[in-house]
């Protein structure tokens, strides 16, 4: 089946790949002059032709133009631009090396045209962050953090401090595809979400797609967070590091063979006993992560990368309670140029998420997780200046371990139990075209075909009338059905199979050099579901595949936008409106137990979701004062109707707010470079309070005071609004200029005015007074921090 599809792709490709005699191709790679890192998203602009191209994720570009002599401007934010004259009368391979802008502001800054191409490209709903930006943003305890930085962008929120994951345009946290060097990462947070798992020193480039997602990506509905790690300095050996209040980082990189191959190894570890009151020395709580990468450039046509990531969280309360979880990723990639117009990347990826728990006081050990193998082959074909194609195939084989329980000591009395492992394969092929129809109109269109096959497992329950959930009309509640039989399969059997065509389309219409209107549509299919009935995911939540009882989630998203650049890109305004419609979003019956449930289908109800909103992003890209202002007005809702007329569904079958519905989300980030020595940075955030439920009454049962909740107003109450201000100052000591050891100090204050933001409100009876109380918990008041970063 796979080969037929591939052939189809190639046929399609060659039928349109018509070459012109009058044109020639210039191609190559753009590097950072200092460390030989390839640069992603560099724009090469040919003013005479008003044509341009940007480098891909591996720094490669290729552009085909009529023969002639042209000027080319090579621009990249934060780097000096290069202008060169190119005589294009034959095929040329031309690599560029850009030099980073020095800290000195006295020199003349060359105006760049970076944003001009962005105005024209049909791609919309994308935000980019560089490692440098992420490191400057003030964060709690001075721990530079990708995800906390993303939350400052429009359309991105989280469930609050200490909440893992993030929500994009009213989507759930399990709907984000997080890719680290093209490998899927399942858990993005350390310590339940206080920190993210990405070491900022190792990160080269971060791109978040919120909409108009190209057909190259699939498998999650709401967003793609595409993170690329550095390759390692292939010129010199370098050490980079930092010492912070929470963790310390160290990164070593250098050439294996100068200019050709490099290595990088970076580690980050928190201090043991982190935040735990030291009443007992046997307690521990820490996390670490380790990134490594080896890059070997055989020649201009072949480049090999081996990268790994290991991250782990450990904490334990003496021997009574030990909790460990983390991701592992191993990834081998091969970049190959079939021609100066055809770039390819082959990836073989192993990715794993493990969760383990030892509860000695009840006498058992528990582990669960997900393992997957991904093979994918991606091509980028630079056919001519007006037409570029991306196409490829991908296959992901996944094994789900929903849980295993074993006695942890001989006298425990616990009987081992293994929940049935599940297996699945997700195949996808895609083709995507970037097409310039006229000087004003550019389109990007493509289609992704995905097939999800649930493979045979040892036992699969069968229910009467195929209904795993029953509704008890007498007592008015949903309850789990008892299985009437159990089917057993061979591993190679197909239990269920789903096919989806996912069309993607976006266009840009340029009104003038600085202004454009964009529109996009994308359909996405998601075959995996994170079983979680809390507002934000927890480490012990397990992933489950679609199958006989759970259907794949499907999304249709429409977005339109207006993009305007002022003063040659010094300022930019991006406005977007979006509408999302999601089918097959699951919710859970009242009292559902999601942990160690081998019959998870018996607690799931099928529903749908929708979200819509307006985003405004105003940026100042140049000068001493830089930053942005973001505002999002949005709504995110869910509907779980009854399956028949006499069933109420959830919330009486009416729409209800998702736990991540935030009406207003406003943020400001600004940085000001006072002089060579001092740089200042500030954030301000304001968000509507999280949707929640307040009790409507109380009663007593068996000496317990029980609150009453309403069944038809789910998530209709709100926590108080969330807002805070952070500041930070970066000090670059002057003596840095003269020496090899470069150091900087980052001083920060999180939540400057000490706002007690409600993380939660607890409703319970005070034992002493026997009165009911609402107790608000705030996690962080004012938190000062200091971090020392170095490089040599």
């Amino acid at each position, binding site marked *: 089946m796979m080969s037929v599809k591939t052939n189809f792709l190639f046929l399609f490709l060659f039928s349109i790949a018509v070459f012109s005699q009058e044109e020639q191709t210039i191609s190559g790679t753009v590097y950072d002059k200092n460390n030989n890192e390839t640069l992603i998203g560099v724009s090469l602009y040919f003013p005479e032709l008003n044509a341009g191209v940007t480098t891909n994720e591996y720094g490669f570009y290729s552009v085909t133009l009529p023969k002639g002599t042209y000027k080319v401007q090579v621009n990249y934010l934060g780097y000096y631009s290069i202008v060169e004259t190119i005589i294009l009368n034959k095929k040329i391979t031309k690599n560029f090396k850009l030099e980073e802008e020095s800290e000195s502001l006295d020199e003349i800054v060359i105006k760049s045209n970076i944003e001009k191409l962005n105005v024209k490209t049909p791609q919309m709903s994308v935000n980019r962050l560089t490692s440098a930006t992420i490191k400057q943003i003030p964060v709690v305890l001075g721990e530079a953090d990708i995800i906390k930085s993303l939350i400052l962008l429009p359309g991105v929120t989280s469930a609050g401090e200490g909440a893992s994951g993030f929500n994009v345009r009213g989507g759930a946290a399990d709907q984000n595809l997080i890719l680290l060097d093209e490998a899927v990462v399942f858990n993005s947070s350390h310590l339940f979400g206080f920190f993210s798992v990405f070491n900022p020193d190792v990160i080269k480039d971060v791109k978040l797609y919120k909409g108009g997602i190209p057909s190259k990506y699939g498998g999650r509905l709401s967003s793609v967070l595409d993170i690329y790690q550095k390759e390692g300095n292939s010129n010199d050996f370098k050490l980079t590091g930092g010492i912070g209040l929470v963790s310390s980082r160290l990164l070593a990189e250098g050439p294996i063979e100068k200019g050709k191959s490099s290595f990088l190894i970076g580690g980050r570890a928190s201090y043991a006993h982190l935040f735990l009151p030291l009443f007992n020395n046997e307690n521990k709580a820490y996390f670490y992560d380790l990134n490594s990468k080896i890059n070997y450039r055989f020649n201009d046509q072949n480049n090999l990368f081996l990268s790994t990531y290991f991250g782990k969280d450990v904490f334990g309360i003496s021997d009574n309670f030990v909790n460990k979880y983390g991701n592992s990723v191993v990834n081998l990639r091969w970049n190959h140029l079939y021609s100066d117009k055809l770039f390819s990347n082959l990836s073989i990826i192993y990715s794993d998420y493990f969760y383990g728990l030892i509860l000695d*006081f009840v006498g058992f050990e528990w582990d669960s997780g997900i393992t997957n193998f991904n093979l994918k082959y991606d091509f980028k074909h630079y056919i001519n200046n007006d037409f570029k194609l991306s196409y490829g195939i991908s296959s992901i084989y996944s094994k789900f371990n929903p849980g295993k329980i074993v006695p942890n000591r001989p006298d425990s009395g616990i009987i081992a139990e293994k929940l049935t492992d599940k297996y699945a394969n997700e195949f996808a092929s895609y083709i995507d075209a970037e097409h310039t129809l006229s000087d004003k109109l550019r389109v990007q269109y493509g289609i992704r075909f995905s097939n999800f096959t649930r493979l045979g497992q040892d036992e699969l329950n069968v229910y009467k009338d195929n209904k795993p959930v029953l509704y008890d009309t007498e007592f008015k509640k949903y309850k789990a059905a008892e299985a009437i039989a159990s089917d057993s399969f061979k591993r190679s059997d197909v239990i269920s199979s789903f096919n989806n065509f996912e069309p993607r389309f976006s266009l840009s219409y340029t009104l003038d050099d600085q202004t454009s209107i964009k529109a996009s549509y994308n359909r996405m299919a998601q075959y995996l579901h994170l079983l979680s009935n809390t507002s934000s995911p*927890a480490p012990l939540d397990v992933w489950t595949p679609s199958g006989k009882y759970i259907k794949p989630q499907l999304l249709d998203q429409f977005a339109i936008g207006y993009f305007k650049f002022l003063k040659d890109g010094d300022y930019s305004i991006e406005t977007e409106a979006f509408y999302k419609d999601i089918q097959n979003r699951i919710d859970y019956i*009242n009292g559902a137990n999601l942990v160690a449930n081998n019959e998870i289908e018996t607690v799931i109800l099928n529903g749908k979701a929708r979200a819509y909103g307006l985003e405004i992003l105003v940026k100042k890209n140049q000068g001493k004062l830089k930053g942005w202002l973001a505002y999002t007005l949005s709504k995110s809702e869910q509907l779980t109707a009854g399956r028949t007329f006499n069933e109420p569904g959830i919330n009486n079958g009416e729409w209800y707010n998702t736990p991540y519905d935030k009406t207003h989300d406003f943020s400001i980030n600004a940085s000001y470079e006072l002089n060579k020595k001092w740089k200042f940075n500030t954030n301000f955030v304001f968000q509507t309070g999280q949707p929640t439920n307040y009790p409507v009454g109380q009663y*007593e049962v068996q000496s317990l005071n029980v609150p009453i909740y309403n069944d038809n107003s789910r998530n209709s109450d709100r926590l108080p609004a969330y807002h805070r201000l952070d500041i930070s100052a970066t000090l670059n000591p002057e003596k840095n200029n003269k020496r090899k050891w470069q150091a900087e100090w980052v001083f920060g204050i999180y939540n400057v005015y000490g706002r007690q933001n409600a993380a939660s409100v607890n409703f319970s009876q005070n034992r002493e007074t026997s009165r009911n109380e609402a107790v608000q918990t705030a996690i962080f008041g004012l938190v000062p921090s200091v971090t020392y970063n170095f490089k040599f």
Partner: protein
Amino acid sequence: MNKIFLLSVLMSFFFIRCEKVIDIEVPSIEPKLIIDASFEVLFDQTPVTSNNSVKLRLSADYFDDTIPVVTDATVFLTNLSDNSIISFTDENTDGDYKSVDSFTPLDGVAYELTVIHNNEIYKAKATKIKSSKITSIVQGEKTLFSGEEVELKISFKDDEAMKNHYLINVDRYNYLPIEDRYFNGSDYNFSYFYEDENIEFPKTIDIKLSGITQEYFTYFRILIGQSGQNAGGPFQSAPSSLLGNIINTTNEANFPLGYFHISETDTFKIELVE
């Protein structure tokens, strides 16, 4: 495993959290009839006795200081095997209805509870559920999260022949529902961490082990989750009205809250020392 409990407790160990009592306007509803009828048959005593009481209350607004009692209802049980009637009265007019004649629920007999209040009839059925005997409970040395807990090492022998659910009740206010899924038929032992901020040693506490139905197990799990529920935060899950097994046969929409349940219960007294 109760995930939300587990996470909330763990979370409370990170960072300096600031707690304060706040004023919140909460919505209110029409009062509902609450029927709290959990009978305990103390099967390991001679003679076998039982705690039978039907507590009738009305629900109140969340921040009200008192919960109104219902003293004007008619309450009786019907033995469904012979249709005999067991009458209950509220002698002390405190809303606690006791059987007029001493009464111990019998093995394998289904009973129907009838409550008549405001001309509406409420009904529920229950049959006594087997329990197991507590083998031993001893005080241990370990602590869990706060370091202030008292470890109770509880062991009992589960009945292999059937699927059991248990409700463990420690010192009246603390409940733990468990199922024998992971220890069917074994001599099960585990540690329960008892916590009382104002404890003064020595203190004698009662521990009860009751056999319960699967439905009551689920009901109690939600009940514990919702009493002391966190609104908001990363680990909140949407609560909903907690319907028990009692129905209003006159007016279905005006459903009562509470449960009618009959369990076998074993009790154990232990003196806790420092």
